[in-house]
């Protein structure tokens, strides 16, 4: 890869004696939509959280634009954090603020925008995720799907270079989910934003992902890497083909 914006080198993740991934290495190119796949419980979220510096790596390193977030602190760490936006699985919206307030928070803290400009940016971000007019609602008043979209809007408040999405389409209806895919592709095309997406939705995966890695709990690492369509059709690993073709474990449920 010519210009990787994220480089993960021999990363070992886990907690104490519990090792989830032994030695994971991969690269994400600038402007790529990169998917992390794997069965439930294989540690996709842990890998993501280790990449963004929430969990310390047990060994190895994860570089974001050449900087190691786990070893940076103070201003250097902030500089890395301002380049990324994260959407958490459950939204993690601040319940004491309105949706517009949630999006305004990073703008208020990090930019010199005048007040009405921040309102406008917040409204435009909400419009991007089809939540126009919902700015005055609080997270308690909206549905789970709206919460996800609002969380994506907040992750993009500062137009970061890299956006991490933890299961963006989980719990969304197919139409909204497809619109979200369009949104991701449009933002990538116009702003060159890099997306790292954890997803289970095969339809969404084939629609958006340029490349993907597949994690496995037993292997404690990556068992496949490449373009989703190629892995589906030509992977030598039956487990991978099974995942991509949505087949149950043979004999898992007696017919």
């Amino acid at each position, binding site marked *: 890869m010519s210009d990787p914006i994220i480089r993960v080198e021999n990363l070992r993740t886990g907690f104490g004696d519990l090792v989830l991934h032994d030695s994971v290495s991969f690269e994400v190119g600038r402007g790529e939509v990169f998917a992390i796949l794997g069965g439930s419980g294989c540690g996709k979220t842990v890998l993501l959280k280790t990449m963004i510096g929430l969990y310390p790596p047990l060994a190895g390193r994860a570089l974001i634009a050449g900087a190691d977030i786990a070893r940076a602190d103070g201003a250097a760490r902030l500089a890395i954090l301002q380049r990324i936006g994260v959407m958490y699985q459950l939204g993690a919206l601040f*319940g004491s603020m309105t949706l517009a307030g949630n999006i305004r928070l990073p703008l208020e803290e990090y930019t010199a925008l*005048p007040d009405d400009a921040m309102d*406008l940016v917040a*409204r435009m971000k909400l419009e991007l995720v089809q939540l126009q007019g919902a700015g005055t609602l609080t997270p308690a008043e909206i549905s789970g799907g709206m919460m996800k979209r609002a969380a994506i809007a907040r992750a993009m408040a500062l137009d970061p270079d890299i956006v991490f999405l933890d299961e963006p389409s989980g719990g969304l209806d197919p139409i909204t989910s497809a619109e979200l895919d369009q949104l991701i592709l449009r933002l990538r095309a116009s702003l060159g934003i890099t997306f790292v997406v954890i997803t289970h939705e095969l339809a969404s995966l084939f629609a958006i992902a340029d490349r993907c890695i597949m994690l496995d709990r037993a292997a404690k690492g990556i068992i496949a890497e490449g373009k989703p369509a190629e892995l589906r059709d030509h992977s030598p690993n039956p487990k991978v083909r099974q995942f991509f073709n949505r087949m149950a474990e043979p004999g898992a449920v007696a017919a």
Partner: protein
Amino acid sequence: MAALALQPDAGGLATIALSGRLDAYSVGPLWAQAHDALRAHPRSKLVVDCSRVDYCDGAGVALLVDMLRQARPADAAVEIRGLAGRFQKLLDQFDPKALAAAAPAAAPPAPLVARVGRAGARVLADLYALVAFLGEAAAALAYALRHPRGVRWRDALRIAEEAGVNALPIVALIGFLMGVILAFQSAIAMKPFGAELFVANLLSLALLRELGPLMTAILLAGRSGAAFAAEIGTMKVNQEVDALTTMGLDPVRFLVVTRVLAATAMIVPLVVFADLIGLLGGALVMLSFDIPLQAYYNQAVSYTRVADFLGGLAKSLVFGLLIAGVGCLRGLQTETGAAAVGISATSAVVSGIVLIVVVDGIFAVLFYYLDL
């Protein structure tokens, strides 16, 4: 960096040239300049020349939209020119006219009468909830006493440990402090009359009848009442309470009965402990006033009756019941969100302390008429 240059007005046409990188960090200063430029040319057509913009993200687009959405006469419209195609696509997603409408404002504050009415209705609804909960909890407790095997004693034990055993250090600290302060202050006042010995009377009566139960109850409200409200409130937010309901388990029986039983059972030993530690603190102060332990002990024992001690314990039983009950009630009343859990915990402590004071007053009157 981003820059904005205003080129001179030529034949009713003004040009604003934007250049550089328009992002959330750089457009802030440009915003006021752009507005000034628009205001300076109210009647002429304005061209925003973006041909030298290298990068334009959401905030940059917001700046352009902001210029486009301003209300201007038809022959003095704002026109964006030369924006690179990929940024133009971002801009095309928005309809500036729709964004021109003021953001939907939050509902205006209601008139005073309506607010007073609503506040009154809230108080009544709260009272109603309290009474309904009291009935429900009483029924669940009565059921539990008739069917002791149905109570989840393991949960109750865990809660008793948390609310009772783990409260010992703080109860000891405050009890000791109370005894020392009370003894010292009254001993100073009584010294001129040579009546230091009677500090023992004052101390034992005040601690056993009032201060021991009261102080322990307030500590219990602050520690466990708040904890009950926060724990049940978080369960409510996480839909755990809903899960109990759909499993056919009554949340009151499942969550409230164990807590009320545990807290009520634990407050009695806590009060006895607080009384003893308080008296011990007083005794230490008395030693420094040359009153030997034996004299202090005899004085206290001869003056206070068992009824004083038991009255205090009876009172504390009711305190424990109310503190645990109101803590659980506030937890079950929690709405959604992290802030709501905080509000419930606060409300549990405040309601708990108010109830303690009210009930203490009732007991004082009761004891007076019963001549206890």
